[in-house]
């Protein structure tokens, strides 16, 4: 496992290549999880808590990284540990459990950051649900465009379209389809009410 470096993790997670991303996510999990589990267990948590907290921390890290919203002034391990610590502290507060934890340092991401990133409203959940029902090509194009913020030229290259206009048209069609499905889903929900 120690052949993985922070640079490799960052580069692989930023890559739009899904296989490379998955490999990096798995390697990160196996590489850092034992230590995080140890931390949560030593601070009144269970193994289930540890897995949940750590998985959410990776999701936050990954999202911020891909959205270029991450200023990493420390190692990935230190960053993940900070998110886990803050999130666990916040969970403990919510549970009103009295466990003495070390105070979070000033450089660490705040609880607010973590919670806001994970918090999604109902309409966004609906978009996510509908996206999951769409065909793979549409889903990929929309994710490349809206999440990875890739340019049409790059999307065309990744999807093996003949040119960027094809990618642009595909994105428009998929977005229209997404909206139709959301509308239909909304109507169905209203009918059921």
């Amino acid at each position, binding site marked *: 496992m120690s052949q993985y470096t922070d640079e490799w993790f960052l580069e692989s997670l930023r890559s739009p290549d899904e296989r490379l991303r998955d490999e990096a996510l798995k390697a990160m*999990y196996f590489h850092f999880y034992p230590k995080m589990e*140890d931390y949560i267990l030593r601070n009144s948590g269970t193994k289930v808590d540890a897995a949940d907290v750590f998985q959410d921390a990776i999701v936050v890290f990954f999202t911020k990284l891909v959205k270029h919203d991450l200023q990493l002034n420390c190692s990935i391990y230190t960053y993940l540990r900070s998110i886990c610590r803050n999130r666990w502290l916040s969970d403990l507060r919510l549970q009103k459990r009295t466990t003495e934890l070390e105070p979070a340092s000033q450089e660490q991401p705040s609880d607010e950051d973590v919670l806001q990133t994970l918090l999604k*409203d109902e309409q966004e959940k609906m*978009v996510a649900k509908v996206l999951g029902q769409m065909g793979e090509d549409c889903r990929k194009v929309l994710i490349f465009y809206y999440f990875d913020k890739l340019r049409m030229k790059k999307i065309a290259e990744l999807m093996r379209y003949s040119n960027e206009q094809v990618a642009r048209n595909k994105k428009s069609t998929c*977005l229209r389809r997404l909206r139709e499905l959301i509308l239909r889903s909304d109507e169905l929900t209203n009918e059921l009410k």
Partner: protein
Amino acid sequence: MKASNHSDQQLDDYIFGRMSAEERETFERQLAQDDGLKEALVKQRKVHGGIEAYLQASVKSKLQGYHQEWEKQQTPSPRFPRKYIWFIAAALLLLSLLFVLLLPSSASNEKMYAQYFEPYPMQLGDRSQDPSDWMRQLEDQYTKQNYAAALQILQAQAETTQKEKKWLLYLGICQLESDQITAALSSFEQFEENDPVYWYEANWYAALAHLKAGQSAEAKKKLNILLAHPNAHYDADARRILDALFHSTTSPISN
């Protein structure tokens, strides 16, 4: 969903921050006057957020799968109703004892312990020549590997030694070499991950303690923790022990 005079592209460019200052100003002026545009922008933001939520859920689901794989690589611990736990724990303890006593793998763990254990060097600097100086006595006993005697000295000086973590490390090592493994583990567990100097050492000796006790799974866990924090002094040995444990295990481990 869309305001009549605005394209998705404009909404996306605004959300992505891809507009020039002038375009942005014009767009925001229109936004203030056009409720339809405002609504379209809100909905477009939901599309952006929803796609992000989809991807986050997908990543989380993958991570849950990786977690299951990781758990499989550790010693499996099936879940039983609470009322049976003590019974099962007792049976497991008995089996573990038999395992430690009878099976060759425990003997090989012992052998590995003997191979890899080295006392952490005691460098207390210039001690007084006074033979009654406890530190001098401790250093003498420790370097002669009279760990039981060194342990007694440390325990007698508990009030002083509790103030510094290095004494705790030596205490754990003396307990380990005096076959007080539970006490040794308890000493090593007191090192927080942020302890600047002795955390690696404490984890290393804790791994050896588990090895000595024939607790391969726990030893592996500690060694994996060490490897997650590269440290030139311990990495090669930790990897070698893990390899040896992997090959000596009787049950297959999936990768």
